[in-house]
């Protein structure tokens, strides 16, 4: 649930930056740093798409997986936990590279990008904890959800 909530916030941030990049939003609300300098730099595009659009994709994947994980029939699924860790880890690495570019190449900080980086780290931490928890329970895809209502005879 925590991952789903964090991913949803991430989707909104990435969507906001994508719409700016596409020219739908004229200016970024940026109380700290230089969001526009970062988002108009040549590193704001990756493989022909705005970096923020890749972010939307990653967050949507994390959101969908985490939401699926809350469903009773997927509760305790190792596959979902591993996928969450994998996507989160990759996203954190990508985000770390972007943060390096901001600090040492572009020399400007975008507060929305920093917020996204923090969200991704949090998602990674929670997803690793979830993965370890699911391994510890030693059940593959058949764990009864903790909050299943008691059966009534």
């Amino acid at each position, binding site marked *: 649930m925590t991952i789903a*909530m964090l991913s949803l916030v991430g989707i*909104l941030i990435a969507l906001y930056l994508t719409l700016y*990049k596409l*020219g739908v939003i004229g200016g970024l609300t940026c109380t700290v740093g230089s969001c526009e300098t970062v988002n*108009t730099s040549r590193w704001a595009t990756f493989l022909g798409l705005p970096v923020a659009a890749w972010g939307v994709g990653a967050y949507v994947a994390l959101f969908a997986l985490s939401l699926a994980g*809350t469903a009773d029939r997927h509760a305790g699924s190792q596959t979902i936990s591993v996928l969450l860790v994998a996507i989160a880890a990759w996203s954190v690495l990508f985000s770390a590279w972007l943060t390096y570019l901001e600090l040492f190449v572009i020399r400007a900080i975008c507060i929305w990008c920093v917020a996204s980086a923090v969200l991704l780290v949090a998602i990674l931490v929670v997803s690793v904890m979830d993965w370890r928890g699911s391994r510890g329970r030693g059940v593959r895809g058949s764990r009864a959800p903790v909050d299943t209502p008691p059966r*009534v005879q």
Partner: protein
Amino acid sequence: MVKPPAKARDPKKPFYVILGVVAVVGIALIAMQARGSGPTPQIVAELPPGDAGKAQPYVYGRPDAPVTISEFADFECPACAQFATLTEPDVRKRLADAGQVSIRFYDFPLDQHRNSVLASLSAACAADQNKFWEMHDRIFAGQDAWATRPGESDGAANRRASRLFAEYAKAIGLDEAAWSTCVEEQRHLERIRANRQLGIQRQVRSTPTFIVGNQMVPGALSYDALKRLVDQAAPRRDTSGGAGPR
């Protein structure tokens, strides 16, 4: 026997409700921002036809010089930048400053270049403060930095160019507030349209295109090629009167 409840209450429901509320509030905030700020006012890239009769070039050198070199150029065209940065300094120094020619610059913004009109407006507004050529040189010299990049949205390209042109305005000592207001109001759009319309009338098909005397030559000419054209035009005392409206 206890009768089971018809339907167990889903304990995750509050969580889904909170997710939904966060999503709706987030999207509403983004929509408000999109509607409130809107995209940066785009400087029209595709100009409607102008009145060629109102064409008014920017002149370098003595207006009564025996030969006139008229250039139709687009600030975002790489060949124009090449001419402006590599060849034009020689032409100014050796021909215009010597009183042999005058150079007339006509805007000819091409539709495919998203920042051309903005560049023309920026230069025109610098002309209000008698610094057209300083701005012209800065804009061409910095073309790599402000020209539209592949995959870049028009809005982003426009914003980046605006910021750089403002830096150029500051660097050449313009009254920034006056210049900025002039650009935002697109005060000289009519002039730019008229200049381009004159080029269209004169069958200009690419940029840069030069008219020297009565010869029209496209391409970024070398100094020697341009000098030959000037020499050919000189004996006739440039009776064509340049490319100006007649």
